[in-house]
């Protein structure tokens, strides 16, 4: 009996196995026929006119007010249209609406263009605009854009649910709507709050917040592309919006396909025409390899952002500006840039403003802290840290020891700290490098309350807005709180005065002067040192025309001009 049972068990296993064997052998053989099933349909004319993007990190939040990574934002920006956007120079230009700013600079009045329709055929009116911004202010809103509405008049009352109407948003008629900022928050940067896609209020109307979130994967907007389908962590398919409200500027391509392609395969995918364009991780080898591909042309431009190093100035040794400067002189950033990115793919950071901005000061007025060990040693001596026979510097019996929180999610902090441990050792500084993940660095530096910030040095990268206003970020005294972005603890009343004046100044020439003044102070004091400004490299297939990428121009902003040959 038992043995019969066993035989039947083995038989069952064998049959299952055969079934799989059947499957696998089929997979191994069928495709070796001359026609490749996966490739064949690509020859139909429709698929030929689809623009193919490759990258990694799509999250599935295809909504202009919910998306929280670059890739989801690409998708949202292809499907939705904003009131205003920027041109390649970084100046604001109208998309859906023209605008005027009141005398007191507090009220922005937008007039919608004629005949705007969503892809489902319904009209885009000021009601939809108000709906979009009121949704960001909704008590249940859990996306990352609250700042876009939080300085409008009456935000607190509306957000807390105390009032049903948002005082700062007024619908004047079908085509005209005004936004009024609270007293004291006039700023030229406020126009950036109108760079979020407008959602159709009928479609997105919600009873519970879960209903609203459920539409993240089924977006409808007024843009040149409509959403077709998405396979999580594989691809997002967008199709041309055949009902686009302005037929003269409708898309000239049939769709956009955004595929999940790992960094390791980006170059291969470009080489084999499996994708048309992608950002290539910036390094000298990658640039060289990409330049060798005959089917690809390269766009190489300055990225809008910087990497920085933060000194915890609440620690006595790092509170001394001479010590901070000495550490910078003893850091060979030019060699670091060459080792990490390759020559020409990054430049030494000086001011906390992108060199692409109109606000960037004349570099000759700034100190690049060129590698100089003698100067570093001299500054350390002046600060009272004297060299001991054991090769380290001491002051009042205390050895100069710093720790550096290095996250391993990207490679540059490791390279930089590795080079520092060598040159700083020569300077007489004992450096302890602590490796961890990004979240841990953020929680030990920014999240921790002042006094509990458990680090001497950490490094990170930031991307920037077009407007140079630094409020709320690394250099804001008020951001030295638990969860704030200024972990250095450095405070400077004069610099803060400049930051506040710069934020509220509408005259660009005067504003530039203010920021130049501020940049010079920060370049001398260096509580946060700007390490490098990096370039982006993009590979674009030669069959794609009209994709003019730049610091302030992303590919989704070129969609109307792109053609495929």
């Amino acid at each position, binding site marked *: 009996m038992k043995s019969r049972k066993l035989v039947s068990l083995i038989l069952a296993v064998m049959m299952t196995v055969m079934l799989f064997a059947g499957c696998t052998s089929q997979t191994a053989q069928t495709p070796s026929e001359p026609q490749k099933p996966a490739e064949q349909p690509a020859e139909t004319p429709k698929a030929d006119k689809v623009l193919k993007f490759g990258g990694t990190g799509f999250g599935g939040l295809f909504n202009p007010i919910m998306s929280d990574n670059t890739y989801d934002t690409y998708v949202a920006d292809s499907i939705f249209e904003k009131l205003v956007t920027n041109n390649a120079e970084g100046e604001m230009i109208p998309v859906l609406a023209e605008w005027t700013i009141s005398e007191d600079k507090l009220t922005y009045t937008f007039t919608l263009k004629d005949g705007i329709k969503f892809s489902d055929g319904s009209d885009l009116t000021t009601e939809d605009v108000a709906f979009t911004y009121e949704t960001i202010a909704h008590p249940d809103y859990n996306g990352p854009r609250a*700042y876009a509405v939080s300085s409008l008049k009456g935000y607190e009352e509306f957000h807390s649910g105390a009032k049903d109407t948002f005082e700062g948003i007024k619908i004047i008629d079908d085509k005209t709507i005004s936004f009024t900022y609270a007293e004291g928050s006039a700023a030229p940067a406020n126009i950036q709050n109108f760079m979020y896609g407008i959602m159709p209020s009928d479609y997105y109307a919600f009873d519970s917040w879960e209903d609203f979130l459920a539409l993240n994967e089924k977006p409808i907007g007024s843009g040149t592309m409509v959403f077709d389908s998405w*396979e999580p*962590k594989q691809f997002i398919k967008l199709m041309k919006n055949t009902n686009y409200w302005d037929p003269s500027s409708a898309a000239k391509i049939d769709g956009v396909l955004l595929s999940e392609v790992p960094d390791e395969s980006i170059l291969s995918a470009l080489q084999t025409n499996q994708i048309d364009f992608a950002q290539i991780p910036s390094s000298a080898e990658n640039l060289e390899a990409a330049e060798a591909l005959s089917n690809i042309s390269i766009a190489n431009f300055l990225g809008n952002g910087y990497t920085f190093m933060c000194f915890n100035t609440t620690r006595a040794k790092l509170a001394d500006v001479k010590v901070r400067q000495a550490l910078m002189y003893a850091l060979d950033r030019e060699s670091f840039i060459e080792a990490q990115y390759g020559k020409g793919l990054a430049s030494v950071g000086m001011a906390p403003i992108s060199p692409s901005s109109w606000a960037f000061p004349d570099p000759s007025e700034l100190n690049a802290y060129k590698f100089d060990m003698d100067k570093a040693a001299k500054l350390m001596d002046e600060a009272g840290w004297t060299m001991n026979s054991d090769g380290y510097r001491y002051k009042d019996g205390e050895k100069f020891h710093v720790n550096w929180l290095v996250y391993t999610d990207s490679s540059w902090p490791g390279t930089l700290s590795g080079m520092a441990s060598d040159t700083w050792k020569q300077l007489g500084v004992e450096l302890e490098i602590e490796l961890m993940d990004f*979240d841990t660095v953020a929680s030990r530096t920014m999240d921790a309350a002042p006094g509990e910030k458990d680090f001497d040095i950490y490094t990170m990268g930031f991307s920037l807005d077009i407007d140079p206003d630094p409020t709320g970020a690394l250099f804001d005294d008020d951001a030295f709180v638990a969860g704030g972005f200024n972990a250095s603890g450095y405070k400077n009343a004069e610099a803060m005065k400049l930051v506040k004046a710069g934020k509220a100044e509408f005259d660009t020439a005067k504003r530039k002067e203010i920021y130049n003044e501020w940049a010079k102070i920060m370049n001398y004091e260096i509580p946060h040192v700007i390490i490098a400004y990096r370039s982006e490299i993009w590979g674009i297939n030669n069959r794609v025309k009209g994709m003019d990428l730049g610091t302030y121009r992303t590919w989704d902003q070129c969609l109307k001009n792109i053609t495929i040959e």
Partner: protein
Amino acid sequence: MKNYIIRRIIQMIPVFIGILFILFFILEQAPGTPVSNMMIPKMTPEQKAELAQKLGLDVPWYERFVNWIGEALHGNLGYSINHKKPVVDVMKDYVGPTLLLSLVSLAISVIIGIPAGVISATKQYSITDNVLTVVSFIGISIPSFFFGLLLLKNFAVDIQIFPLFGLKDPLLMSTNPVDKALDVAWHLVLPSIVLGLGSTASFMRYTRSSMLEVIKQDYIRTARAKGLKEKTVIYRHAFRNAVIPIITLLGFWIPSLLSGAVVTESIFALPGLGKISVEATMTRNYPLILGINAMLAVLTLMGTLVADILYAIADPRIRYD
């Protein structure tokens, strides 16, 4: 037998709760929160704190633990923070491809590994055995990211016969289910070879050593002495006894069918559970980490039970009463 199974299942409940408790405790110990990585300077600390509060992070972890179990009993595993949708829905998106990939690679390893192990054992120290041994050690030692990139370089870039990434051709216009299945199968060839190689090798080694032990037993000599055919001796008498350790191996394989293969999934850009669990960990997406690990804990417990039951079936001497 029935009583045994029921008793085992009841015993699993406290073990499972214990696992969850440890999970909650470890997550609580990890520095950082889901809002730590939001690098948006325009976001004020108050707005950040409000988001944390909406995620329920202001509640102590032991309270969250009790609440979670209460909700889980109603089938609600919470909302994935990054995906802004229910954890169950997120897992549904990824469980299919993971299961497909692991079943195919498991099939490959069972079909190749076990027979190769038997051959290797019956012809110990022969050339076949030596070749198989060398191959299996290569299979165990070669890092999957290297092997995967090697295959991609050769078969997807140099000779472009296999696709470079993904599980489906998004531009496939055909609606014929056979075409669609072939397309998926086509995309799975390289990843399942990479994933299957390591386990094939380990199945081979387990089978070989287990067979070698059995073959030296007296009853095998007796069987041969009775004049049975060599095939009968090996496959009906020896293999049946040698299969028990392999069943243990298969039992432990059940959770790994769904835990995903992070490296393979990343290299071939496959939408699997392995990759999202790493992502969830890096961004402290607590609800998703808990959901995935709770599922794996259940599968591990079930896997050991299934293995125990299979012992009894394979070996009549084992009884649970």
